[in-house]
């Protein structure tokens, strides 16, 4: 339903829940607070304004009919709560990418009480182009004229009173990153919603020929459309002249039997316009809109000419330079490695009396202490001890030990994203990625998934593919993003490297990073030439000005992603660990003939998991995996964090009393059958095999079919096994085994 539905009541849907629900809640349902939507161009500073409006309490919600979560928070103005939604940035209501479609569908299907249009004061004309389109929908709009400080420093002064008069909507100057003007903005929103300051947006006019056609078509529509859609007739008319596909389809549906009559009227109007201007109708409409935007900008902007080149241009002259650009890119990757592994993980370099323990060490220490406390349970309640120690302390503790590392990694990426550098990475690498069937913007998804080599997460990575327009580009990116080294793979690498390559941590991490890219790019190359054959798609991307990352926003973003990791450890991973523990504990073996209890290793071998692991051994032996590793890898299908927990459980359950306190690394080093070669084959397999269930679920949601997540599972596991087996067998031939 398109049009003005007053205050759009919002129904929230749980994450990952059920089918798409297209029908908005009836207007009578008043549970939710009035809705304020933040909309505007990408890079206009929407998110920092959102953070300033709502504080740190935010949640991610799904809206019916919209396949995507929008960030949502609460604003208190006067004595009432308002729900604020941060929509994805968009340049136009003619949606181009998936992400823009989300913003558009939201605005049209759930019209908010008021739209806060965030406008970048330094780039008024293009931002106002979107504003004009919002005005066309006749929804109440308030303009937040953002980044006025930056504009002034560049000699741009915007007369907001004049702009407000011209457009017929309130214009509030703001600086989102510092919170300036936020209170006035909140008051204005409340005023519009409560009806004390109603807004009457100026009717957009396009010049005489276009206006006549719009009005004529709107009149025809008025007679054809049902009463509730009639209010938006003018907007429909404009979109029909632009041949906007979704709107044309919607109108044809609404017109029912008279669709043919309407089609003829549209065609005639388009033909008259095109004859008059000798250009196509969509171009004419877009140019008229720009005419309105440029007119407003001309009258309201006062520019003091400045001779100095602006900072962004100075930085780009170096960062995007042919010679220096790639070198800097490599430098940034190296800096990330250094930052994550040296600065934030190994704190021994900090001068401190008695030495310094790294944050990871502190968390691990806590769990070791907890394990020690549980020892008292062992004689009396062996089963309970086994469950708590193996599934809870060792399993979940192993995952939580990586929280500090993951936090620092996300912090670095969030700061990079916020600074504007990632767009330059896409610019520099587009040509290279195109060779492999990807494009520049794929890099964002790959970096978020862990492409910088030190942890990330494929879940936000897959979601980041929404900025890609072409379905095939999106799917290829989604299929290769899980190869990147996400945070969940870090514990596996850490344990195996500590056990078998203790002195070569950095070179091995670099090698694993390089391999993940080689495999991802080769896979993309093959996919583009086989299952996803097709034209290369356009690449049109804004290079936003650099700015210093806003600490608050970066921290919020980092905390949010880290919290997802922690939550996963406490829920999905805990549940899988308990399940795994059960299949490793039961059934118990019968007592030996001489009446003694069977040894722990016999017990594990006798369990369900042990039997399954043994059944797979003939195949997996090719890659050097015995039944114990198989158990861990099967658990890892659910989440890769489980791999280490499961190994810990197998080896802890098998343990003999004397090495009860040894770490998993130490135990592996002493265990029969383990060699550096086998450890490397296992790391390779864990890096590449099937995405975790959460990623699978997200791929399912993003592609709308089970075909791609299933394909991802099968092809990734096949590649992983072939490569691991090749490395293992090749290594043995070379005598490395």
């Amino acid at each position: 339903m398109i049009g003005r539905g007053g205050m759009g009541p919002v129904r929230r849907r749980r994450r990952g829940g059920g089918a798409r629900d297209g029908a908005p809640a009836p207007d009578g349902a008043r549970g939710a607070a009035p809705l304020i939507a933040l909309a505007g161009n990408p890079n206009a500073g929407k998110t920092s304004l959102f953070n300033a409006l709502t504080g740190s309490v935010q949640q991610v919600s799904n809206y019916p009919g919209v396949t995507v979560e929008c960030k949502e928070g609460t604003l208190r103005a006067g004595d009432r709560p308002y729900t604020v939604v941060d929509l994805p940035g968009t340049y136009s209501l003619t949606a181009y990418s998936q992400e823009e479609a989300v913003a558009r569908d939201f605005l049209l299907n759930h019209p908010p009480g008021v739209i806060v249009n965030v406008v970048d004061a330094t780039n008024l004309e293009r931002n106002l182009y979107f504003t004009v389109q919002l005005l066309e929908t006749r929804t109440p709009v308030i303009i937040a004229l953002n980044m006025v400080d930056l504009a002034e420093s560049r000699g741009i002064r915007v007369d907001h009173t004049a702009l407000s008069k011209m457009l017929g909507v309130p214009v509030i100057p703001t600086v989102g990153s510092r919170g300036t003007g936020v209170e006035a903005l909140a008051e204005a929103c409340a005023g519009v919603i409560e009806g004390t300051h109603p807004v009457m947006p100026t009717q957009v006019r396009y010049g005489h020929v276009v206006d006549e056609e719009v009005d004529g078509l709107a009149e025809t529509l008025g007679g054809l459309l049902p009463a509730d859609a009639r209010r938006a007739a003018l907007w429909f008319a404009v979109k029909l002249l632009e041949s906007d596909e979704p709107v044309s389809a919607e109108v044809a549906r609404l017109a029912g039997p008279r669709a043919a009559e309407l089609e003829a009227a549209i065609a005639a109007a388009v033909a008259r316009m095109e004859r008059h201007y000798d250009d196509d109708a969509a171009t004419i409409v877009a140019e008229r809109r720009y005419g309105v935007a440029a007119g407003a900008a001309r009258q309201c902007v006062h520019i003091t000419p400045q001779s100095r080149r602006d900072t962004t241009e100075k930085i780009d002259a170096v960062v995007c330079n042919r010679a220096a650009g790639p070198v800097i890119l490599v430098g940034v990757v190296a800096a990330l490695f250094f930052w994550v592994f040296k600065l934030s993980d190994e704190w021994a370099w900090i001068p401190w009396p008695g030495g310094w323990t790294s944050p990871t060490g502190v968390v691990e220490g806590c769990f070791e202490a907890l394990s020690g406390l549980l020892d008292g349970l062992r004689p009396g309640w062996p089963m309970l001890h086994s469950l708590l120690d193996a599934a809870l302390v060792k399993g979940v503790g192993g995952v939580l030990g990586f929280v500090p590392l993951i936090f620092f990694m996300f912090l670095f990426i969030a700061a990079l994203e916020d600074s504007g550098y990632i767009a330059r990475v896409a610019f520099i690498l587009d040509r290279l990625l195109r060779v492999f069937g990807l494009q520049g913007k794929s890099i964002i998804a790959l970096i978020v998934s862990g492409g910088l080599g030190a942890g990330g997460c494929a879940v936000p990575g897959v979601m980041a593919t929404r900025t890609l327009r072409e379905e095939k580009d999106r799917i290829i990116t989604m299929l290769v993003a899980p190869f990147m080294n996400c945070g969940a793979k870090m514990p596996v690498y850490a344990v195996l490297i500590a056990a078998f390559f203790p002195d070569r941590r950095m070179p091995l991490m670099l090698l694993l990073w390089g391999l993940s890219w080689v495999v991802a790019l080769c896979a993309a190359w093959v996919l583009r030439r086989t299952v996803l054959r097709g034209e290369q798609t356009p690449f049109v991307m804004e290079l936003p000005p650099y700015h210093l990352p806003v600490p608050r926003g970066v921290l919020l973003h980092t905390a949010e992603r880290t919290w997802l990791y922690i939550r996963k450890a406490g829920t999905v991973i805990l549940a899988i660990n308990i399940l795994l523990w059960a299949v490793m504990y039961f059934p118990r073996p019968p007592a030996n003939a001489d009446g003694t209890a069977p040894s722990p290793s016999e017990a594990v071998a006798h369990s369900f998991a042990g039997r399954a692991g043994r059944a797979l051994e003939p195949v997996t032996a090719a890659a050097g995996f015995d039944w114990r590793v198989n158990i861990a890898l099967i658990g890892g299908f659910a989440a890769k964090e489980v791999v280490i927990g499961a190994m810990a459980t197998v080896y802890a359950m098998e343990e003999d009393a004397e090495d009860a306190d040894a770490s998993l690394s130490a135990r592996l080093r002493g265990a029969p059958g383990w060699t550096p070669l086998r450890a490397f084959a296992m790391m390779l397999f864990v890096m590449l095999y099937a995405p975790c269930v959460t990623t699978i679920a997200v791929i399912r949601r993003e592609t709308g079919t089970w075909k791609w997540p299933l394909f991802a599972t099968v092809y990734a596991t096949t590649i992983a096994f072939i490569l691991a087996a090749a490395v293992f067998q090749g290594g043995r031939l070379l005598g490395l085994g």
Partner: protein
Amino acid sequence: MLDGERGHIVRIGRTGPRGIRQRLLDMGITRGAEVLVVRRAPMGDPIEVVVKNYHLALREQEAALIEVEPVVP
């Protein structure tokens, strides 16, 4: 056009994939607008231009759709 050259947009070609034309329009590539070619990416493509006072990256393939009349300095 070479780096550092300016031009006025004359028209946008009609070939190329669907939607790209609308996208270029939405990004401010309209008749009469001035474009300045800033630089090429390290591997020669894409191209960075300034249009309507902001920086835009696009591939040669898309840029080829945009007809410009050079501004003689």
